């Protein structure tokens, strides 16, 4: 449900509840009782669920992740004009949805991946507001990046399955698929965001949103 529709629903419910609060005598009739049940039970709970669902959806957006000050350099890294930067190449070429770039790569494509991603987000919030947030360049993943997240899209793709480097050694492709040879940290695709290590020569692409 779009945000504006949820806001209208919430305000509509609040106005109806206000009517019953100001004029409780209207609940004397059967219609008034139904109205009271609707505005004090059904509509508030429905509004709350709709609002939470809306917020959960919003939390997957790139803009949401980058709204934290500490994430700004990571947002800038998506615009680096250099295809060797993995995150930038994926974002600029729409290999991931541009409006959900962070979430697409950093969620966990396992059974409870979305739930764990949300818990991780709450942990970020706790550290950001109540803890001692690290400098952007000192941010580390909680656990090593699992190839499963890459293979969610690349598995079966011709460029991956028949890529010259992936097939130079017959053991490489099975090792990647078994997550024993990391895509990111084995020296093949290790330039991801590289925040704090850009140097002076890095250029930025001014396209995208």
């Amino acid at each position, binding site marked *: 449900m779009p945000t504006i529709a949820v806001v209208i629903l*919430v305000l509509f*419910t609040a106005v109806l509840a206000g009517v019953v*609060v100001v004029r409780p005598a209207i609940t*004397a009739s059967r219609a008034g009782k139904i109205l009271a049940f609707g505005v*004090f039970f059904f509509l508030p709970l429905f509004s*709350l669920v709709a*609002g939470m669902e809306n917020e959960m959806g*919003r939390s997957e957006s790139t803009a949401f992740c980058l709204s934290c000050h500490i994430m700004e350099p990571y947002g800038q890294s998506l615009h680096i004009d250099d295809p060797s930067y993995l995150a930038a190449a994926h974002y600029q070429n729409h290999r991931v949805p541009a409006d959900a770039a962070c979430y697409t790569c950093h969620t966990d494509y396992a059974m409870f991946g979305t739930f764990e991603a949300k818990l991780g987000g709450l942990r970020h919030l706790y550290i950001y507001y109540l803890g001692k947030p690290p400098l952007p360049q000192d941010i580390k993943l909680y656990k090593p990046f699992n190839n499963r997240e890459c293979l969610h899209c690349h598995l079966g793709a011709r460029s991956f399955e028949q890529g010259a480097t992936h097939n130079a050694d017959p053991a490489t492709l099975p090792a990647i698929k078994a997550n024993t040879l990391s895509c990111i940290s084995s020296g093949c695709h290790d330039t991801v965001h590289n925040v704090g290590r850009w140097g002076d020569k890095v250029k930025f692409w001014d396209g995208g949103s």
Partner: protein
Amino acid sequence: MHRVGSMSRRLRVSGIFVITGLLVEALCLVWSKPIAFVVLVCIGGALIGLGVLFFLYSLVSASPHTTDSYTVAPDK
């Protein structure tokens, strides 16, 4: 003279909880910051939940004749 029964008072209290919670929720929905979700759940959700629970409690705790107080006299 308008007499407000205990059921009316309970409805008003639960209504105030629900309305406050809904207003908090509306603010969170237009506030595009990560903390908005936490505020929505912890404050808005808690207020709405309290209002709903108090409403349900007022229903189950009402005596059969409590609702008669609504019909004593309309507002002037």
